[in-house]
């Protein structure tokens, strides 16, 4: 399920009225320990006033003479990742959330970071499968190419049983680091799907994704071998062969299909003792 602005926002938002004094706003900000308030005029959002505006304005002034009128807002159904992008692009600390032109809440940068922190795997430092799924939905929504690569460590259950789970966790950390180090460009987005399974999504076509997956597998094999904990990996690839951009109506179902196909392709790689297989 894609996380939405309404899942993360603080609601109801603490607001100021357009004819309130700046002095009153300063008291509200101090009382609730907040750095910005959406401003309402007859119930409609008309601006936002921040602690910076308050500091540089005479306290006798009305809010209308201190607030920023070009207020950036998001819809309650906007994805969390879209909200994050808006905050980063516009260099904002907070953004009001509207539902049918009515203010329903506010999201701060901290809210976003806390939520994203929940989607980070503590062992490997990679994003969780649900985070990657949400990114994949965004890629499809923007009508971009989407390729899913599913990596499965071979015989990992046996490694855990033979060497213990602490040893197994060390292996997973090494694999996670290899993924992180080889995806810094942003073209490939890695996550830990579950247990010993990793997922990577990309806007590259399937052939390029196949070459990339092959390289990663070689790096994992060599690195773990050099560290005395040899691991082999099987990968499966699905998607990445869209001819023309088209509107996706069931994004979630499409992503389910792609992950499933990539997973089955990785099983096929295992069975055929090849590093990478493509789904049909």
């Amino acid at each position, binding site marked *: 399920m894609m996380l939405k602005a309404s899942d993360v926002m603080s609601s109801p938002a603490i607001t100021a009225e357009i004819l309130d004094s700046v002095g009153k706003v300063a008291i509200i900000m101090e009382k609730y320990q907040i750095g910005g308030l959406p401003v309402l005029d007859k119930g409609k959002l008309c601006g936002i006033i921040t602690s910076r505006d308050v500091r*540089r*304005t*005479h306290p*006798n*002034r*009305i809010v*209308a*003479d*201190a607030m920023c009128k070009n207020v950036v807002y998001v819809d309650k159904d906007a994805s969390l990742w879209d909200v994050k992008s808006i905050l980063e692009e516009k260099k904002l600390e907070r953004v009001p959330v509207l539902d049918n032109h009515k203010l329903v809440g506010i999201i701060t940068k901290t809210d976003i970071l806390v939520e994203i922190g929940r989607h980070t795997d503590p062992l490997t430092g990679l994003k969780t499968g649900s985070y990657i799924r949400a990114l994949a939905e965004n890629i499809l929504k923007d009508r971009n190419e989407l390729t899913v690569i599913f990596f499965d460590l071979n015989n990992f259950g046996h490694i855990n049983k033979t060497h213990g789970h602490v040893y197994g966790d060390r292996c997973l950390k090494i694999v996670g680091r290899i993924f992180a180090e080889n995806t810094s460009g942003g073209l490939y987005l890695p996550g830990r799907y579950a247990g010993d399974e990793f997922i990577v999504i990309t806007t590259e076509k399937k052939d390029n994704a196949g070459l990339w997956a092959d390289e990663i597998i070689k790096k994992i094999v060599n690195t773990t071998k050099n560290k005395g904990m040899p691991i082999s990996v099987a990968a499966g690839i699905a998607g990445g062969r869209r001819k023309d951009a088209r509107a996706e109506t069931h994004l979630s179902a499409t992503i389910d299909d792609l992950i499933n196909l990539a997973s089955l392709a990785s099983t096929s790689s295992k069975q055929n003792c090849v590093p990478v297989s493509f789904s049909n």
Partner: protein
Amino acid sequence: MVFLNLKLANLNETGRKAQISILLSEFEIPPIQDVLLIGRRAPIGPEAVQRMIDVLSPEQYENIRLSDGPFEAVVIRKSLSRLITREKLLNIILEEGCRIANETAVLKAQINIVLNINVEVDL
């Protein structure tokens, strides 16, 4: 103007005394005369002034926002621009205003424009 000065000395010979002065004068409408210069850090801002003139003297003033200098806005009586162009008047007002005021000031100005016209006609 009416000035009332009530001495209450006889009301209480032994206790404390109060002296009440009342200054009555006619409320000036509009209260901002011809021009109002609003400093960037003044206690009132252009939006508040706009609301005031909208209520007290609708459609009689123009609220001009300024991007530079100590003043955030200048409010000018519209009728003045029938005698002199807005730009000329604004330049003169701002030049003089900047000499005596800073960002915290709100200045009101009365502008008297006298036109001297000499026309020669055949007798």
